């Protein structure tokens, strides 16, 4: 199987979640996944477009799909929100001709993307495969206990997502344990963290985020692993609202699964990625002998 994809980085991965973007590129390179960045891609509109305007929610990703169509490759993304928007709009465009026509008119290209929209987690677990991943592992991370956090966008809606279950997905669990960490059981894998309300109603979001941390701590986790930049940002930023001071109650770090793969594989650059986190992961990493 050729592992070559058109790559849609998504806005966060080139700005606030740069460490996600960088670790993705590094991991892909070492696993032999070839990424061809989509030419002149635009923001998929994330939650705001689909929450307010049906057309925008289909057309913004539609433009990316139109560009991807030209590449003849499958389209890879790492952001759960982008993934969800791209898949949904792809499905909509294909089933609604009038909509497709309007998008085509606005974008100036045919948005009927023939390939598949993929999330990197899907590719790593299902195309590269867990046994293959195990072969690449160099550092022993077994002293660390982690909980997987999928968030809501990666698993829903059920019909379009790659995860095996909308309630109890296991892809990330499998990956983490393949990387040698101890996976702790918890029930909050797919609970919503309130990402889209992050700026506007942080009182609500704080409650959701704190609960996720509390449960992770109860589950005995040293680390939360995620596959979505919105989740990560929200978890890191929204434990406690502050105007002038930024407070953190929970010190459980949140890492991208790509960072973790990089760490396990001993790829260059992990210190830089991890240094970008608001919750300092280094105290936890002290547990790992190979790194100290």
């Amino acid at each position, binding site marked *: 199987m050729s592992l070559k994809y058109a790559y849609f980085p998504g806005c966060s991965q080139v700005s606030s979640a740069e460490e996600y973007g960088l670790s993705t590129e590094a991991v892909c390179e070492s696993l032999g996944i070839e990424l061809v960045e989509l030419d002149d891609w635009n923001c998929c509109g994330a939650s705001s477009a689909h929450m307010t305007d049906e057309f925008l929610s289909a057309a913004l990703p539609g433009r990316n799909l139109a560009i991807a169509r030209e590449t003849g490759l499958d389209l890879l993304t790492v952001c759960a929100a982008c993934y969800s928007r791209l898949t949904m709009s792809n499905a909509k465009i294909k089933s609604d001709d009038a909509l497709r026509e309007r998008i085509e008119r606005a974008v100036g290209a045919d948005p009927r993307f023939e390939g598949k929209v993929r999330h990197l987690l899907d590719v790593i677990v299902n195309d590269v495969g867990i046994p293959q991943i195990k072969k690449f592992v160099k550092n022993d991370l077994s002293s660390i206990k982690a909980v997987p956090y999928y968030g809501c966008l990666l698993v829903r809606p059920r019909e379009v997502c790659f995860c095996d279950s909308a309630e109890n997905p296991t892809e990330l669990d499998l990956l983490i344990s393949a990387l040698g960490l101890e996976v702790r059981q918890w029930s909050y894998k797919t609970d919503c963290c309130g990402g889209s309300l992050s700026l506007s109603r942080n009182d609500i979001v704080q409650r959701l985020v704190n609960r996720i941390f509390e449960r992770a701590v*109860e589950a005995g986790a040293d680390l939360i692993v995620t596959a979505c930049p919105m989740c990560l940002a929200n978890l890191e930023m929204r434990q406690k609202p502050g105007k002038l001071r930024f407070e953190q109650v929970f010190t459980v770090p949140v890492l991208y699964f790509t960072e973790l793969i990089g760490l396990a594989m001993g790829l260059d650059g992990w210190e830089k990625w991890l240094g970008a986190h608001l919750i300092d992961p280094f105290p936890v990493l002290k547990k790992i002998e190979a790194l100290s």
Partner: protein
Amino acid sequence: MNGKIYETQTEGGKSERVYSSKPVGSVMVIGGGIAGVQASLDLADLGYRVYLVDSAPSIGGVMGQLDKTFPTNDCSMCILSPKLVEAGSNDNIEIITLAEIMDITGEPGNLEVILKRNPRFVDIDKCTGCGICTEHCRVKVKDPYNAGLARVPLIRVPFPQAVPGAAFIDPTKCLQILKGKCGECQKYCPAGAIDFSDKERTDKIEVGSVIIACGFSPFDPHKTEEYGYGTYENVITSLEFERILAANGPTGGHILRRSDSQSAQKIAFIQCVGSRDSRIGNTYCSSVCCMYATKQAIIAREHDRRIQSTIFYIDFRAHGKGFEEYRSRAENEHGVRYVRCLVSAVKEMQPSKRLLLVFINEENQFVEEEFDLVVLSVGITSGIDALATRLGIRVNSHGFIQVPKPASLETSRPGVYVCGAAEGPKDIPESVIQASAAAGSASSLLCPSRGELTVKREYPPERDVRGDEPRIGAIICRCGTNIGGVVDVPAVVEYARTLPGVVFAEERLYACSQDAQVWIKEIIEKHKLNRLVVASCTPRTHQPLFRETVRLAGLNKYLFEMANIREHCSWVHMDEPGLATEKAKQLVLIAVKKASLLEPLEEGVSPVTPVALVIGGGPAGMSAALRLADAGFKTHLVEQEEELGGNMRHVRMTLEGDNAREILEEMIRSVMNHPLVEVHLTSKVASIEGYVGSYTSVIEKCANSAGRSNPDIESASLGDDVSEDGTVRVDHGIVVVAVGAEEYRPKYGEYMYGLDQRVITQTELERRIFDEPESLEGVKNVVMVQCVGSRNEEHPYCSRICCGVTLKNACELKKFLPGANVTICYRDVRAYGFNEEKYLDARERGVRFVRFTQEDQPSVSAAIGRLEVVVKDRNMRDEAITIFPDLLVLSCGIVARGGSRELASMLKVPLTSDGFFLEAHVKLRPIEFATDGIFLAGMAHYPKTIRESIASAQAAAAKAEAVLSKDKIVTEGIVARIDPEICSGCGQCIDLCSYGALEFDPSMRVARVNPSLCKGCGACSAACPSGANQLLGFRPCQIYAQIEASCALLEAGGQ
């Protein structure tokens, strides 16, 4: 019936059936759950040979796994096990286990069934169920009987009360069968019953008809992922919980969390798991789970007072007899909390493994609560798709077997019938009713061949032993090592030989084996024995066998006594062999002492008048009459009104969507034209006397038929001065009570009924929709109010059918006036079973629903010429909704007929406090009375749909047919007898009898027993101060002898 085989020709009032070929007098029943077992027993009783086929190693079905049953909390096994034993020991029922049906060919009456028998690897005839093999098998699998909660060896008796009670090998992992490397069990089996060469084989069996009773599969909750079944250990299914509650289950009845075996204190039940859920395609209601959850919550509490249960539900479906009351007892007496909110997901807390549920309570507050155990009330799904496809039998969209004709249980395949949960979700009594009805259907197809394939044993004449000195034979069984391994059997034999009256004593390895029976017969004859004692296992399973042997040896079968030295001795005192031997001796002594006082008992025989009396000419009464007449019995049908039809006259469309008018007219035509049915219109039964087999009744004309709902007028019409010519006297053998019930008539002014002509009942609405649709034109707003006259103080029960009828009428109204707003004010929408789809249809059509409570009923007023209904919506924080309807339709409940009480006292049968007739046993005898020969059909029992009423009538008819088709009735030998010489006529015993078997004879001034009615409980005898009343077989002198023998060793010790 089926024209192919025979048809009914009516010529000058004489009917004759013409058969193209004679049907085969046997029936195959597929599935040995309660439905299949009941159908088999009924068929055998009706005179047919039965093949009872089950794919499992034992019959019993799901009921065999249940702990208790709602709403009586009867122990499930206690009431089921006797039926299993009965089926197992019936000569005319052949039980075929581990078998599958591959194909059915042929015509109704002459079917050929291809059967695949899977190997059992144990010879049923040789295996004694000793369980020794089980101890030696090292390979364990999940125990299906315990819903997978325990692990058991591959070779085992499926469960203690299994029938057949023989072991089987689960071959999937057997080392010997797979690899030829074990065979341990075979080495140890004392009976040499294990045979590894057993092979799968295919049989062909000729039968006249087939009944499918394959039951259901519980829904697999892995599919409702949000509840975490399979992921969280403390989330279990209701069937698993049933096993946890069971005293013989994996935890011995202790309610423990699975994660740590600590006792669970807080339990949550989540309802509708896999039911009423269009995500997974099950858009029907499973009908039983609301009630079984309530049952489980009550039982849990009985096990441990600290347990608190919460049931999360959508609509609470307590639509059966006694259900509503059961639910309120659960709430008020057992502290069960009901929350009308479906929890969204189950979360497992760490590290406690408690389960967190979030819900909103009735006050609309968010509650987060932790529970120890979450029980998923899994629904009932069809488990027979594959079979149905193989047999080419039509199923409905959910895979349950369809019955195309409204008044029949025949499947799309003529001659093949269905009953029980295979036809749709239902509880035990409904399964039992359908089973009897299906048996009756098969019987009416096959009745020309009744009795042709059944075996009837020939017995030698009985030797008269009265007055002879007792010559007792004592046989002590070793039961392999079961008894012999603990009890010193030779010592017991020695001891027995010393006892007075014992002229013969020997041991046997297996006293119950077939060759032992031959031997026993020989020794009885050779040693001229006149009493037999067998010391072996429990009389509950083996007494019938030995009695039979005794009888075949020419002795009265009551001259037999058993000592249970296995279950009550060797198995329970395994560590004390010396004491066990002493106890065995004592048990033998007790049996011998009783045996010497045994006397031959006579089984009463009374003749049967092959005539039926059916009271009530509604759909139930007519169906019963037709069935009985079709079976060839003259039937009197008594109807107080001028015309037949009962409540069905007001129904235009059945709940299933059939044309009720046409069905009714067809039924009336058949009844009126049937040469064997004599219809007595405008008539009532004035008096009734006698007992099963021979009743005499007087039927007289009603003076005033209009007074049917007024009990005062009714009793007036039954006064003494009835004119001679209207009166008929009939002799009959049985009675079917089918007097139905009636619609509750709202009180004057209740919801403005009677005050405003826009306020009508559902019956009136139905009439207008179908007969005068033009009168509804221009109607824009319709409000319907549920539970009028039901579920309140006066009528505490749910009327069962009104929700269905309302949904039906709402849909019909919307079909015809799509723009109208229809609003249904409900308390719970009780659309049980497939009615749920009607509920879904109503919502699809835009019908609105508002939930109110008993405390806050909708209020109705009329102002400025328009009706105003104000109802507070419980789902919307009690926000009041105001509607100005053009029509207000009251969904009135069903109430018992005023005249029922009088009839009940005439028949000496009981009524419930609600005035409906009370059946013999709520679970297993729903269509019989405790009094033999009187049967119950239709709404006289409880509100029912037309279909249900007809099924129950057919069931009652089948039971009645079994009585009428016998030339005589044999009654038990164990009955009370009153010696008139001694009886002081005090009458103490008379009221004690639950069966009305005792009467005061004023002429002799003594009490008398009617042996045809007596069941032999002995309650009366125990109360008799003079000792005149004695229970035969358990006479005081006999029991005293046993007591004396029990203490005999002590007596010796005192000296």
